[in-house]
């Protein structure tokens, strides 16, 4: 029904689109960030945030604040927003919203499994999990010894089950395996999400394919950079790349053979949309690459709000809020550790 969304979109999703646009208006602006960056203590941050949408969530916190409390409460706000929207959503929007959380689920699974591998306390690990990626039996992950058990015991009940088909091995879990598992899962998840959005069609497909392609390409680049110097073979590396995105398929061939970061850079610069990302970085530098990617992502996410009658805004809002919480965490950390000179290193202004 491309081009006819305006006719029927509002019947089911109009209310929620209005809600999400209202939430977007509550995102912190550059002026807010400027004020936050001038804060001297965490209490100042709390005071400033009390005038924003985070106010009700922070107002009952007793005074010696910690960064974790701030981040936790801010995340709680995001989770509340999300749950509210999910409650109101009908198909296919509710499935779409659920897809957004699968990424967190994968991260949580990996977190718990790695944690148990290093013999951490499960409760402690659970507290570190992102609340959006929680599922019922997540604590039982600690029982599993290898991938097969992991799948058979726990994950078969979760929405992640279909993504597991590629990585069921009887090998014992170790750090390398887990990292490969994460990337395989993520690949399967992104491809599935991509297919789902294509099925929805219309403006949703158009906008989401752009956003997801960017995500896939970013992951491909990160995998390439992180696997430089490891024992991962080229074919294995290539297997972890998602089968869509701008790099697919020729860029993947080139990325798979990269041996240092400048080669990766060389590959990326062949693609005009990504040229700007490297333009600000000097050669051989990979520290700031994350920030550059985040900035590019935020720009794209903001653009999703320019069009109406599509689901991309929900995805964009969730991502932008997450970015905002990352910003708040960084600012609070800098303030708490008296490193205010580094405040601007990792903050990505949204508006």
């Amino acid at each position, binding site marked *: 029904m491309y081009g006819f969304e305006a006719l029927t979109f509002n019947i089911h999703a109009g209310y929620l689109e209005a809600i999400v646009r209202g939430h977007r208006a509550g995102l912190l602006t550059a002026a807010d960030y400027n004020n936050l960056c001038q804060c001297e203590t965490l*209490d100042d941050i709390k005071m*400033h945030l009390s005038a924003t949408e985070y106010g009700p969530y922070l107002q009952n916190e007793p005074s010696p604040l910690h960064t974790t409390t701030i981040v936790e409460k801010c995340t709680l706000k995001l989770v509340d927003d999300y749950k509210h929207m999910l409650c109101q959503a009908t198909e296919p929007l509710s499935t779409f919203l659920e897809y957004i959380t699968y990424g967190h689920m994968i991260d949580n699974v990996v977190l718990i499994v790695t944690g148990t591998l290093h013999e951490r306390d*499960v409760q402690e690990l659970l507290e570190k999990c992102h609340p959006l990626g929680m599922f019922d*039996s997540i604590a039982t992950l*600690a029982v599993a010894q290898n991938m097969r058990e992991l799948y058979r*015991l726990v994950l078969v009940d979760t929405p992640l089950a279909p993504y597991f088909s590629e990585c069921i091995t009887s090998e014992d879990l170790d750090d390398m395996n887990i990292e490969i598992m994460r990337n395989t899962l993520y690949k399967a998840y992104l491809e599935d999400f991509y297919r789902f959005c294509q099925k929805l069609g219309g403006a949703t497909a158009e906008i989401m394919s752009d956003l997801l392609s960017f995500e896939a390409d970013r992951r491909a680049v990160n995998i390439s950079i992180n696997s430089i110097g490891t024992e991962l073979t080229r074919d294995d590396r290539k297997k972890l790349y998602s089968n869509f995105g701008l790099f697919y398929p020729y860029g993947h061939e080139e990325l798979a053979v990269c041996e240092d970061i400048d080669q990766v850079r060389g590959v990326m610069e062949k693609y005009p949309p990504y040229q700007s990302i490297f333009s600000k970085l000097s050669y051989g530098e990979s520290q700031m690459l994350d920030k550059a990617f985040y900035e590019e992502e935020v720009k794209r996410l903001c653009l999703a709000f320019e069009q109406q009658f599509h689901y991309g805004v929900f995805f964009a809002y969730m991502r932008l809020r997450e970015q905002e919480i990352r910003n708040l965490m960084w600012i609070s950390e800098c303030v708490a550790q008296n490193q205010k000179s580094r405040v601007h290193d990792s903050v990505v202004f949204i508006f």
Partner: protein
Amino acid sequence: MDNLPPMDLMRSEKMSFVQLIIPVESAHRAVSYLGELGLLQFRDLNADKSPFQRMFVNQVKRCAEMSRKLRFFKDQISKAGLLSSVRPVTQPDVELEELEIQLAEHENELIEMNANSEKLRQSYNELLEFKIVLQKAGSFLVSSGTHAVSERELDENVYSNDDYVDTASLLEQEMRPGISGQSGLRFISGIISKSKVLRFERMLFRAMRGNMLFNQAPADEEIMDPISSEMVEKTVFVVFFSGEQAKSKILKICEAFGASFYPVPEDITKQRQITREVSSRLDELEVTLDAGIRHRNKALASIGVHLVKWISMVRREKAVYDTLSMLNFDVTKKCLVGEGWCPIFAKAQLQAALQRATFDSNSQVGIIYHVMDAAESPPTYFRTNKFTNAFQEIVDAYGVARYQESNPSVYTVITFPFLFAVMFGDWGHGICLLLGALVLIARESKLGTQKLGSFMEMLYGGRYVLLLMSLFSIYCGLIYNEFFSVPYHIFGLSAYKCRDTTCSEAKTTGLVKYQDPYAFGVDPSWRGSRSELPFLNSLKMKMSILLGVAQMNMGIILSYFNARFFGSSLDIRYQFVPQIIFLNSLFGYLSLLIIIKWCTGSQADLYHVMIYMFLSPTEDLGENQLFWGQRPLQIILLLLAMIAVPWMLFPKPFILKRLHTERFQGRTYGILATSETDLEVEPDSARHYDEDFNFSEVFVHQMIHSIEFVLGAVSNTASYLRLWALRYDNLVIRLVGLAMFAFATAFILLMMETLSAFLHALRLHWVEFQNKFYHGDGF
């Protein structure tokens, strides 16, 4: 004339811009006294600073912290189910610092008590769970006596040196995985919340690959969750399994699901013994727990007595510090400088308050109060009382009046209820409304103190509006002669009677008039007659137009008073005069025709007259002629209206332009002279003369204004027909409604009609009346 009280509502209060220089030591007191007076509006002098860069940020933070504590107390009190008493407490005022210490003490005490009781509660829960497990699991074990041998063996080697009575650390014992031993069948018993039991069982089944037996039974008692203090339903389970690895797996799963496991001895006598011990310990704990709760409740109650007062005090303090944050420190850091607006009449009161503050805080230096002049427009302030307040709010909802602009709420007090009644008019419904309003007013003092729902709040706020609306409805209802849509002979006999004694033709041919017209309002005989609707419609339509034209004229006349007040002869000559000519030459004339037609009883068709006045003004009117000289008058009026339009449009912008160029030429010589004096002016009241004059902008603005007025004259007049249309609509609904059921008429229709009439009256005031003169851009 001089005896009349001043009309405060007519124009907003004259304001003066004042500067206060307050010594630091008396600043707090001064601001709080001023706050109690509520007659000075401070300007934020630190608007460019973020909240935490301001002077009194620490105090504000402290207040926020204190109000957090108070919220905590309130929450605790409501959780404990105590009612906070509202009786006034005669306790001397406490200082803020003292209060802060007190609050901190109370909070620590409470937190400690909570922690203690939580600990107690936890051990109590564990014992209770243990008891339940003992009861339930015991029955499983007895019934499944087949594998009793192996179990007894292992139970005994765990509990052979069982000394529950002596060990205080019962729990420590329990946490030890209950069963250890050699091979064979073992079991773990425990308790889990009911909602998780299904998933738990499934997980166990999967992990054990089916090699286990799961038994469950719901617990009889609900157990309180210590964190959320909600009652949770739990289920007792017993898992039978074999093997060491399986055990560690099960234990891990139990941990993951938050299930707690308790050892159950197989031997019945031992079971009984433990049960008894657990029960006695439970009783002990219960007593302690109860004592703890009583103690806590007492502490909470003592807090609850002061809570309301403390909350209001902290709020006041916070407001004072927020206000203080809006002031500037002067260079010497000895005093604060504040600027604000106050009405001129309040000067004496303000100075008295400031003196009191100086005196009370034993300050050496008085507070300096002096009036400055400001460039920007002052805020609007109306002195209202409880009667006029609601009407002022109706106007403010549209827009706050510009400073000293004439205030429409003076007229709204009467016109609003009147227009409402024209639409609503029914003295039966009016009486219902009146009763409601009277109840609200009679219980005014009682309702005013308590908290009402949002709907009741609205009704209560508008109680005097409601009263006037109902009185006017009764009046209009009497004119329309409708009591729940039924006419009555109140003011004597009808003017009409039947043609003959049988009255057979009453509904067909009609009646004959035999005496003077009915004394007041509509003759009841119209009811049910063939020509009822045409007669009433024509009457009400014409009446609506008369009312509308009158109100619009009123609006334009008010614009004259505005222009005169602000001394703008330009507006009078080029806006007011053409506007009033335009409106009256068309619709004023129509009103005149209506009145003449009513007085003479002429049969002329007024539509025809009005339409052909434009189409062919020179043509002979024929039978539609109402009075001598009508045709020349119409031609003159038409010409006047045509002249009025360019009169409205062109002169004003051109004159403005000329004035501007003249002033600008004058300025070129004056600039040097004034620049020195400007330096002496205080920087805070730096003035900006916005001298930009953009001719095209002014012209376009004037054009829009004129077109709006010309088109508006037609559309607004038509808009007043809603007075008739709504009336008609109500009539139809009521007729149907009465036939259906009385209840619906009484409540739903009454509410609906009241609302719709209210909204339409609101619109007529906001749009049709106020757009003639009201700027409404004040603050």
